[in-house]
């Protein structure tokens, strides 16, 4: 270990010990896991209800002597049950990241150890790197445990073990989730190392989270003309797909603005990548991982880009310890 990296690792180890001692990660990850398990149980119940409806309809048609060829039997794809789980990571995972980032700075500011640490032969960048490394491990470990429990729950629900391919898909989703939560961790850390008042930093980070995770996707979804009429505008008007595409060409600017608002949200990129990899979106169901990655690689690059940009800001921006005294 070089001399430059040693203090980074010491700081990281200290944050890991903090996370173990305060149990905050355990509580937050426990909440995410619980939310994920609830969504899996609900999805399984909904799937069972669908299947029972199908059986009832089939039996009725058979008893009436009518053909059942038009009835589509609901298929069971275990990874599809993870839809709610992924959405909970989008929402609760963002909060976990912000809280961890906030605490990583607040604990140093509250105990007035920030000034003390920076009086040692330690650069600002080493301090930030230590925080990123320690909390990066904490986030990855927490999410790994959550994913492991979710995969065990899938086994319990479906009664069949996941194959190598499914674990590969879960692994890619876990990696994307770690990047996504990491983005919000850095946002919380950046704000807590910038704002004079700590609660203001936390609330400002929550406001950004609201705007990026909940409001931007909601605006994009609301502006979709097909979501304005129950059943879809084109289906209601009985317009075939080719004509629909032709008509939508005249709304290209509107669609660009709508998509742009959605694209501004890291949550949307994480969701699109995960839904494709896990086959939650029907068009990607059964498609090989390599092909999906080829199609959705821009979502991954977007997450990596935001992650790198925030890390760059944190590492390059000088700290001002005299400004960051204990909250007054």
């Amino acid at each position, binding site marked *: 270990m070089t001399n430059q990296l040693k203090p980074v690792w010491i700081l990281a180890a200290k944050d890991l010990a903090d996370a173990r001692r305060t149990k905050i990660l355990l509580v937050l990850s426990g909440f995410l896991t619980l939310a994920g398990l609830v969504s899996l149980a609900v999805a399984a119940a*909904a799937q069972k209800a669908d299947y029972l409806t199908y059986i009832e309809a089939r039996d009725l048609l058979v008893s009436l002597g009518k053909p059942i060829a038009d009835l589509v039997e609901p298929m069971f794809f275990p990874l599809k049950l993870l839809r709610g789980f992924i959405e909970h990571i989008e929402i609760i995972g963002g909060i976990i990241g912000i809280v961890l980032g906030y605490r990583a700075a607040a604990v140093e500011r509250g105990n007035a150890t920030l000034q003390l640490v920076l009086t040692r032969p330690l650069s600002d960048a080493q301090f930030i790197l230590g925080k990123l490394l320690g909390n990066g491990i904490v986030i990855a470990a927490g999410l790994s445990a959550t994913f492991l429990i979710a995969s065990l729950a899938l086994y319990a629900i479906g009664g069949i073990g996941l194959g190598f391919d499914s674990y590969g898909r879960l692994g890619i989703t876990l990696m994307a989730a770690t990047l996504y939560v990491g983005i919000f961790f850095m946002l919380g850390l950046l704000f807590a190392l910038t704002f004079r008042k700590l609660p203001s930093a936390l609330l400002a980070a929550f406001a950004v989270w609201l705007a990026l995770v909940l409001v931007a996707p909601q605006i994009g979804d609301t502006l979709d003309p097909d979501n304005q009429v129950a059943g879809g505008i084109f289906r209601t008007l009985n317009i075939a797909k080719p004509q629909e595409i032709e008509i939508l060409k005249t709304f290209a600017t509107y669609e660009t603005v709508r998509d742009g608002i959605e694209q501004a949200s890291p949550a949307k990129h994480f969701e699109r990548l995960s839904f494709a990899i896990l086959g939650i979106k029907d068009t990607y169901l059964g498609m090989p991982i390599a092909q999906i990655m080829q199609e959705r690689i821009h979502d991954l690059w977007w997450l990596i880009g935001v992650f790198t940009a925030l890390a760059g800001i944190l590492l390059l921006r000088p700290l001002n310890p005299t400004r960051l005294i204990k909250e007054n």
Partner: protein
Amino acid sequence: MGSVSFASAARKSAALSLKLTYRDRTVVLLVAFFLVMVLVAAYLGWSATNTVNAIYEKALPVLQAQGKTVPANPVGDTPPLSLFRNMVTYVALLGGLASLVLGYQTVSVDRKQGVVPLTASRPVSVKALAAGKIAALSFIIIAVLGISASINVLTLLMLPGISFPASDLGGLATFYGGSALYMLGFALLGAWSAARFESESLALLVPVTAWLTMTFIVPQVTANIGPMAALNPMSANIVPPQSAFFDFTSAVLGPLSIAEAYRFLAASSLQVMTGAGTSTTSASALFTLVAACLVTGALYLRAATTLDKSRSAYRD
């Protein structure tokens, strides 16, 4: 030393809370964010409706050329108030969170600045001070929603091609009444948490977790409304699948589901309900919201009176 009357103490506490809230930039910024979203909601509703109308105009010649029956323009069935359908989401998200913060800040500022031991040494009723804070929270929420309603009415009058019958004012009033109850419930939850916990981080995290649970987890269990689907005001129309699981969860948890009760009341008063999924009634939704305010109010009063006056500062 004569004791200060309950009414006088409550009035002074309310006035001070209002002044401190006005000075708190975080709360003011969150409220400003909310009001901006009120304008955005109106624009979005108008823009989306106009786009549907434009698509209908483009589709007409296509349908006529194909000799198909031309259905009625869906925009014709759109009530004016439904332009504000996104408000349902913004009150549930921004309004709920801003209210939590407002309630939390109103109480935590006293604990952090050492006001609690000071007031304990004076002949002032703690309940009167807490009642003053509840009055201040109610006033702020009603004022913000009043401004929001005025923006809505002005928008309806200014947007081209929209007529706003006076009879719709009742629907708008019901929507804002339900919104006030919903936001007050969360403000009181924030106040309770700020008074109840010894750790400031916990005092902030607990109500946020409760808000996340109420908004995203409970509706999923009772009605199979996914976390992201809960952002869509039209989710008030979702019918839970026919199964013993959802029959049980909606019966047991349904009456406690504050977010669903609010979404139902708000969506029906803005006329965005299509009639599907109306498993509850406006009266039961109103009852749930009022009960939530009473329970959180009682919890806050209890936490304020049982707070250790000698060690009121947070541990972290």
